């Protein structure tokens, strides 16, 4: 995928069917081949990786195309995850005739449900919140940050501080949030028993479908006029301002959409993995969310998604064989990708071609 729209007329046949062909191939692999080829356990692992891939779609938009160092996606992932988990815990409690979720009976005051938990008993409200809550937080934060022209490292540090703050707050509120344990032991998913492997597969299909739909939406954004403008802001914000656009608004949209995607990923992570905890929200996981995209190629949608899946898969597999070495390898991957291959693996072909011809510029998202 390139950063510019191919010109309208003389598109070669192969090029013309590359995008829809790739999309259909992805759909066949995810919805057809994977469920047939993988055991229940491997499929549930893939479901988890796909949640990270959904975050990577947003990262690709905000960081790859918008140049925003989104190092705090854990916040939005967590808000979506907690919104979903709060509803599922309440539904579990209601199914056994209790009014309070199990952990509140153990660690809480044992009194009534806190007021801010109550609306989450409504499935429609909770579902809406998994996306709207992260988007609202991103909108408020983004509005002030981008209006004041905070960018680069300062924006990254701010994102990280927010991630750390949310995770510390959640730990402190053990009686109402489960503290470090987070919300665990989730039994049902909108009436379906998650202990049943058939329903676990259903969760996988939902996640795969959401990923495909979001990729299609992101692709539309990439090739739209807005996508062009976003790249223009990334590469030369001042020039865009002189042309009469407000770069703050352009960035805000990318940031808010990426937050919504991370929230949805967090919400889907809960039924797939059965846990959401502050450990998934803080600084380290927030960095983890962007490593996959950086390695695969943040400016390329497919690169970011495949990168996220590959890094998550490598972590599961390699950490068994080399438990202590994996962390170093992960750090090394990030350094190498950012330092030597800023376009990620997706740009490897272009880089090699450039070596040979030394003419075409590399379409990366390299800004400070």
């Amino acid at each position: 995928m390139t950063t510019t729209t191919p010109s309208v007329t003389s598109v070669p046949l192969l090029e013309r069917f590359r995008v829809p062909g790739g999309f259909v191939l992805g759909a066949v692999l995810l919805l057809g081949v994977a469920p047939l080829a993988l055991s229940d356990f491997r499929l549930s692992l893939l479901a988890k990786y796909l949640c990270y891939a959904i975050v990577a779609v947003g990262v690709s938009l905000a960081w790859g195309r918008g140049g925003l160092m989104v190092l705090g996606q854990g916040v939005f992932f967590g808000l979506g995850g907690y919104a979903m988990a709060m509803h599922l815990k309440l539904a579990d409690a209601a199914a056994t005739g209790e009014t309070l979720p199990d952990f509140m009976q153990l660690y809480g005051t044992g009194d009534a449900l806190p007021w801010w938990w109550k609306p989450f008993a409504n499935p429609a409200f909770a579902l809406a919140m998994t996306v709207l809550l992260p988007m609202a937080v991103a909108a408020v934060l983004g509005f002030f940050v981008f209006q004041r022209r905070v960018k680069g490292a300062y924006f990254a540090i701010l994102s990280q501080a927010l991630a750390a703050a949310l995770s510390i707050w959640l730990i402190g509120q053990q009686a109402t949030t489960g503290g470090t344990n987070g919300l665990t032991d989730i039994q049902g998913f909108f009436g379906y028993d998650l202990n049943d492997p058939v329903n676990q597969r259903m969760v996988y299909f939902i996640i795969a479908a959401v990923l495909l739909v979001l990729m299609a939406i992101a692709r539309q954004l990439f090739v739209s006029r807005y996508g062009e403008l976003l790249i223009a802001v990334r590469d030369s914000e001042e020039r865009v301002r002189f042309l009469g656009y407000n770069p703050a608004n352009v960035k805000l949209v990318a940031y808010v959409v990426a937050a919504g995607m991370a929230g949805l990923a967090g919400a889907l992570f809960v039924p797939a993995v059965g846990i959401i905890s502050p450990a998934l929200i803080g600084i380290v996981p927030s960095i983890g969310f962007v490593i996959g995209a950086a390695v695969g190629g943040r400016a390329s949608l497919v690169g970011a998604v495949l990168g996220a899946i590959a890094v998550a898969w490598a972590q599961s597999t390699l950490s068994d064989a080399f438990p202590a070495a994996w962390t170093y390898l992960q750090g090394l991957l990030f350094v190498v990708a950012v330092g030597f291959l800023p376009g990620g693996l997706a740009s490897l072909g272009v880089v090699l071609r450039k070596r040979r011809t030394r003419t075409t510029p590399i379409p990366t998202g390299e800004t400070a």
Partner: protein
Amino acid sequence: MSGLSISRRGLLAGMSAVGASAALSACGAKTGSDTSSDSAAKADTSGSTVKVGLLNSLSGTMAISEVTVHNSLLLAIKEINAAGGVLGKKLKPISQDGASDWPTFAEKAEALITDDKVVATFGCWTSASRKAVKPVFERYKSLLFYPVQYEGLEESPYIFYIGATTNQQIVPALDYLKKQGLTKLYLVGSDYVFPRTANKIIKAYAKAKGMTVVGEDYAPLGSTEFGTIVNKVKDSGADAVFNTLNGDSNVAFFKEYKSSGLTAKSMPVLSVSIAEEEVKSIGTQYLEGQLTAWNYYETTPGAANTKFVKAYQAAYGKGKPTSDPMEAAYISVYLWKEMVEKAGSFDVAKVKTASDGITFEAPEGKVTVDGASQHVYKTARIGKVAADGLIEEVWNSGGPIKPDPYLKGYSWASGLS
């Protein structure tokens, strides 16, 4: 324009595929119904060896503690294999790294049960990791042996709790402090579930028994900034500090404690997460004379302990300390072996039934399994850190205490859960 229309067609194709697959797949069991397809794990006991799972953090912040537990589990397995195995089958340990990350623990637990088809799993340290794997073991009806003292308030039918629950560690520690006339307590802990729950119990105990809690402070896990907290402790007029800090924070806390002029004589600190291993890393000069509460020390007398310490040091190096969680891990494998042999089968339901009343001459003294709660009768021991870095026992409960994870037998604890 062409790019747009092409993608739209792709989108439609994708949507229809999604619709079809969702329609095909949405036919699983509803919550609460008994029709769910059987997901109980089929442990593989067909060969001449059976696999057992070891689930510890071999990397990440918890590795320093959990690797010692891992080593103790391997030692017990080696000894059992040398003595002929279990029901004539040798044990093959399969290690999985939980990486100090709770969702990873859940993932690895599932890998052990479904891929490796283990007959039982041993491990986990933090409460958060145990809470993360609990639904996995319950879903597959597979057994976990958990070797660490914890905050109680849990009884999973598929977990055996080999470490102490609160009435075998915290409550005896409070009894001891009260007997010493140390009735004004300052509570310092790391900010996570165990300290917060422990302190809730301490406050209920204090209220009922005429003790006072003069202060309560939490530091984030891994925090090394204790100037403020130590100053507050110093000005509080407390008789003693009840310390539930975990890991590295203890190093910073005790250094600050000593440099502020507080000593084990002027204001003793009773810690529930500092064992022999931690004494070494904190430094004996900071800890000498301070109190700890556990069920086992390296110095606990008895032939079983002499044998354990000797075997551990022969396997992992002279001078390596042994501690309470390590001992609990070591005996957890032996207790499981006794259960399997009594049941005459590796079958989980039969092993559970056979568990009640199983006894073992452990390094900590005789332990007995309580089948109803799946906890263990253990002797509480208060120790004092000696100049050589070992912990000397100064008091014990006189015999094993019946486990009571929900503190149902204590009237003062009735409002807790």
